C-alpha cells in the first residue's frame, strides 16, 4: 500500500501531477469542502482507478485534473504544463489536443454517423473533413466497428456505443485518457470486456488512463487504485495486490 501523501515519481513518466488540490462548492452554511488537499500522480503506461462512495469527490477530482473544473487551491501539472495557470481558451485547446474523454452516458450525436461522431475532436481541430473521417474510420477499425461506420449510434448496442465513444476519445491520439464510470450504462460482461479492451488496445507507454468507477468487477485491470472518501485521498493501492487479496 502506497502512502496517500504526495509521491515522488519519475517526473518524465508522470502524466498528471496533482498537489494539494482543494475545491469548495456552495456558499454560507451550504458550503462543502469537496476536495481536501488531494495529491497524486498518474503515470504514463498505467491505468489508474479513482474509487470511492458517491459524494466522495472522485468526479470532482477527475474534472479538476482534466482541466474542466477550476480548483480553489493547489496545482495540477498535466503533460508538464501548469494546467490552471493557462488562459481558459488554452485550457480548452489543451483538452482538445492532449486529453480524451469517455463519458458515462457516451454523449454521442444521434444525427451523425458513427464515423462522424468519432471524428468530432479532429473536426474541432479544423482538420479537413475527409482526413478527419478517414482517421475516424481507422479508429473504428481499432475498436472493432469498421463495418458500422455509416450507421447512426442509435443502431448500435450499448457496448458498441461505448466503443464509438472510445474511438472518439483516442482519434486525436491524446496522451491522457479520462473515463467517467465507463461501465455504468453497460451490463456486467459488456462493461468488463470494454475495460479489458481499453487495457489491451488503448493503453500504451505514452498514454495514461484515469478511470472513475464504482464497479469492482473491473478491478483486475487497474495498475493502481486511488480511494477517495469525503473529499480526501485515503490511499493508493496496487491493482495487482487487490486481485491477490
Amino acid at each position, binding site marked *: 500500500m502506497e502512502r496517500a501523501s504526495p509521491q515522488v515519481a519519475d517526473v518524465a513518466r508522470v502524466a498528471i501531477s496533482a498537489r494539494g488540490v482543494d475545491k469548495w462548492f456552495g456558499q454560507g452554511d451550504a458550503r462543502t469542502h469537496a476536495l481536501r488537499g488531494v495529491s497524486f500522480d498518474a503515470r504514463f503506461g498505467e491505468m489508474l482507478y479513482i474509487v470511492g462512495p458517491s459524494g466522495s469527490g472522485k*468526479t*470532482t477530482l*477527475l*474534472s479538476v485534473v482534466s482541466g*474542466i*473544473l477550476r480548483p480553489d487551491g493547489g496545482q495540477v501539472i498535466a503533460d508538464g504544463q501548469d494546467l490552471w495557470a493557462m488562459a481558459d*481558451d488554452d485550457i*480548452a*485547446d*489543451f*483538452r*482538445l*489536443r492532449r*486529453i480524451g*474523454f469517455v*463519458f*458515462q*452516458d457516451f*454523449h454521442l*450525436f444521434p444525427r451523425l454517423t458513427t464515423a462522424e461522431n468519432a471524428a*468530432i*475532436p479532429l473536426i*474541432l481541430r479544423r482538420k479537413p473533413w475527409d482526413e478527419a473521417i478517414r482517421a475516424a474510420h481507422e479508429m473504428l477499425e481499432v475498436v472493432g466497428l469498421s463495418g458500422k461506420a455509416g450507421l447512426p449510434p442509435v443502431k448500435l448496442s450499448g457496448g458498441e456505443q461505448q466503443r464509438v465513444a472510445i474511438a*472518439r476519445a483516442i482519434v486525436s491520439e491524446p496522451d491522457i485518457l479520462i473515463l*467517467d464510470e465507463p461501465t455504468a450504462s453497460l451490463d456486467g460482461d459488456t462493461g468488463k470486456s470494454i475495460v479489458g479492451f481499453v487495457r489491451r488496445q488503448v493503453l500504451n507507454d505514452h498514454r495514461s488512463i484515469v478511470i472513475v468507477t464504482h464497479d469492482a468487477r473491473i478491478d483486475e485491470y487497474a495498475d493502481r487504485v486511488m480511494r477517495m472518501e469525503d473529499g480526501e485521498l485515503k490511499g493508493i493501492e496496487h491493482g495487482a495486490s487487490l486481485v491477490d487479496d
Partner: protein
Amino acid sequence: MLVEPKDPAAIATIQREVEHLGYVALTDDQFVRKISRFYTFQTGLGTNILLMTVISFIVGLSISGQTFYTFILENLEKFGALKAIGAKNRELVGMILFQAGFTALTGYGLGVGLCVAAIGLARWRIPDYAALITPWNLALALVMVTVIAGVSSFIGVRKVLRIEPFDIFRG
C-alpha cells in the same frame, strides 16, 4: 376628365385653375397616393394589415423562439460534451448563429417563393389581379426574419454559455 398638359411645368398652374372652379386636378402619382391613403386610413384596411403583420411577427417570434429553445435544451448535454472535449465558447456560439441564420434564410426564401407563387396563381385565375412585392417589402421581411432569428438564438446562446462541462460528468 383626363387631360394631358403639353408642358409638364404647367401642371401646378392647371391644378390652381381647376381648384378655383371648385374641383380637384391630380396627377397620376397624386391620384394613386390619394386612393392608397383612402384605403389605408379611412377604410380600416391599413390598420388590419398592420395588425396582421404585427401578430404574424409575434407568432413567428414565439414559435421559432420556442422551437429553437427546445432544440437547445434537448441538446444541452451535447453542447456540454463538446465543451468538455475542447470546443470553445465562441465556436459553439458560431454553430448556433450559423444554424439560426441558415434556418432563417431558408424560411425567408421559402416564404418569398410561396408569395410569388400565390400571386402568380392569383393572376392566372384573375387576370386583373393587382399585387406587387417591392424591394422595400423584401427588405422589411428580411429585417423581421433576422430579428426573429437573432432573438431566438440569443436565448439559446445564453443557455449554452452557461452550461459547465462539469455538469456532464455530474450527470
